[in-house]
């Protein structure tokens, strides 16, 4: 298992993890003991901070691999993606659970989180978001269930989940389409507030496309990490093709973004020496650089470069969501918002919990395909093949 190699690394991480959990625990006590005002830098003029901008916006986005890969395998019948299906579903499931958990911190009255179930307002995007979170989390639970049933050896339950898998996956695609885009729709109602580099009637569409991009990037990211942590082989030819899809998607996304800016006459804004301009450039750069790289075969063939591209796309995506929810809102709100350390602690704590849960699940459940000849291209070592 390579335990000797792994130990020192894990210890460092365990220390960091423990420290982070301590900080998160402290922040939690302050948040629930003293109210939102004590634990955050939120104010009447800036009521949404990183708990919305990062925990919800990015958490949901980074879970997008779940529906894209599920659709690839079950609907488009691209069998070769099968080996990465389970880890991706697991990420998405954990992502959504953590979003709900994160909401507990952000909502003023978390114990009323179920209210949208019975108190309806179909005119509210937030209402749509609430329903999508609930329904899609259930869908993900159903998509992940076979992994658990397999471990437990419940053949009956397994057969049953297989029978309903296609409708469940289709429901997942519908819900994700609605949910990813609706996070963008949340911002449609304040055209006067959100900086024009980001405000566009096409926000829902851009949120959707960038979520699909980051879904693919997450797939590369996870495979790399799990191969390091568990010594599992990277499904290299497969990830190369994911890289290809990602390159094209990024090209489409970035082209649309600029066409939209041009159409709205917002391009001249790029000449202004403002914070918004720089952060916009950062966001675009983090998407454009990996796009250009991914179009090169040599980059796709190198696992390291492929991983670097995925990381850039993920950061670009996070930058975009934070730009929309924080940077772009500051000027219009007339305040400058910097999160309090406790806000950051809770956010990092959630991410750490996510990583830990993923590890535990991957260790005890059949998330990754075992080394058996069922893998495509059996015989040759895909890593070695790609390394050339």
């Amino acid at each position, binding site marked *: 298992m390579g335990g000797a190699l792994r130990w020192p690394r894990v210890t460092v991480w365990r220390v960091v993890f423990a420290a982070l959990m301590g900080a998160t625990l402290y922040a939690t006590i302050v948040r*629930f*003991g*003293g*109210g*939102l*005002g*004590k634990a955050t830098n*939120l*104010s*009447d*003029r800036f*009521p*949404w901070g990183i708990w919305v901008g990062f925990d919800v916006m990015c958490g949901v986005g980074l879970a997008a691999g779940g529906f894209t890969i599920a*659709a690839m395998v*079950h*609907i*488009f*019948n691209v069998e070769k993606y099968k080996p990465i299906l389970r880890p991706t579903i697991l990420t998405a499931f954990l992502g959504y659970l953590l979003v709900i958990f994160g909401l507990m911190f*952000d*909502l*003023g*009255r*978390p114990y*009323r*989180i179920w*209210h*949208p179930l019975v*108190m*309806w*307002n*179909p*005119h*509210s*995007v*937030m*209402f*749509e*978001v*609430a329903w999508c979170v609930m329904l899609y989390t259930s869908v993900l639970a159903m998509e992940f269930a076979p992994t658990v049933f397999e471990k437990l050896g419940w053949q009956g339950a397994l057969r049953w989940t297989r029978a309903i898998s*296609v409708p469940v*996956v*289709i429901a997942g*695609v*519908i819900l994700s*389409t*609605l949910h990813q*885009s609706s996070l963008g*729709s*949340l911002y*449609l*109602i*304040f*055209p*006067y*507030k959100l900086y024009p580099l980001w405000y566009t*009637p096409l926000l*829902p569409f851009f949120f959707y496309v960038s979520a699909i991009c980051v879904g693919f990037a997450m797939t590369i990211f996870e495979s790399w990490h799990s191969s390091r942590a568990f010594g599992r082989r990277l499904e290299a030819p497969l990830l190369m093709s994911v890289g290809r899809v990602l390159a094209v998607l990024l090209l489409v996304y970035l082209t649309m973004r600029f066409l939209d800016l041009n159409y709205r006459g917002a391009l001249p804004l790029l000449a202004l020496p403002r914070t918004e301009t720089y952060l916009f450039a950062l966001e675009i750069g983090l998407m454009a650089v990996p796009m250009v790289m991914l179009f090169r075969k040599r980059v796709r063939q190198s696992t390291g470069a492929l991983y670097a591209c995925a990381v850039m796309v993920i950061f670009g995506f996070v930058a975009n969501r934070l730009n929309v929810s924080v940077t772009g*809102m500051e000027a*219009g*709100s007339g305040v400058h918002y910097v999160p309090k350390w406790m806000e950051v602690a809770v956010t990092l704590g959630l991410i750490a919990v996510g990583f830990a849960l993923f590890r535990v699940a991957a260790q005890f459940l059949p998330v990754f395909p075992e080394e058996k000849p069922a893998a495509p291209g059996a015989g040759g070592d895909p890593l070695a093949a790609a390394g050339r």
Partner: protein
Amino acid sequence: MSRAMLFDGSLCVGCRQCEAACSERWGLKYDEAIAAEEKLSERKLTAVVTAGESYLRRLCMHCSYPGCASVCPVKALEKTPLGPVTYDESRCIGCRYCMVACPYQVPVYEWSRRLPRVRKCDMCYERQKEGRPSACAEICPAGATICGERDELIAEARRRLAESPEQYHAHIYGVEELGGTSVLFIAPRPIEYLGGNPGLPEEPLPELTWRVLSLIPNIVTVVAVSMGGVWWITHRREEVAEAERREREGK
């Protein structure tokens, strides 16, 4: 018939009695320190703001098509047929979308409470139901804030603008803005002080969202049909391949 409020900036003397009356009605503490804060907060739900030599009031504008009510996932905020936009704290989950969405930045939050509420002016809804003026209008010694039917108040504002044009900037704020508001303003100068953002569109804000939300049934149908279709095609291909293979083997 809908109730409304008219504030006349050229009559206001800045005595802040409306603030005091408002705080009393909400059961909030009111003292000199709070009076000196010229902004809305959980400590005061209306504020008199010094604007050059004159004064202006900040309070909920009671939009005809309120953004806050349209974004609230649980309908805690509601535009009543009577005019006021009311808040039902027992429904509120505390997502604070209403605060982000209000173009005038009016709703405030009880940041220091463990179980916080959104706070905002409700035009003294229980008084309006009886046809009585709000607490602030009732106490105003200068007649700067008055309550009444919206049509009548607009007519009254027009009359004042026509009678003494030199005293006013020739615009009644709230007749058209965002599709209209139930709180109307006239003042010596243009009203850019509302704490909201200049450049508000004339159309009601909820429209911007509804345009997308109303597409949901179509999106659901299109995605469902196309996914189902693709599935049928891809798996049909498999079936055909399978059949062909069997045929070949059979031979």
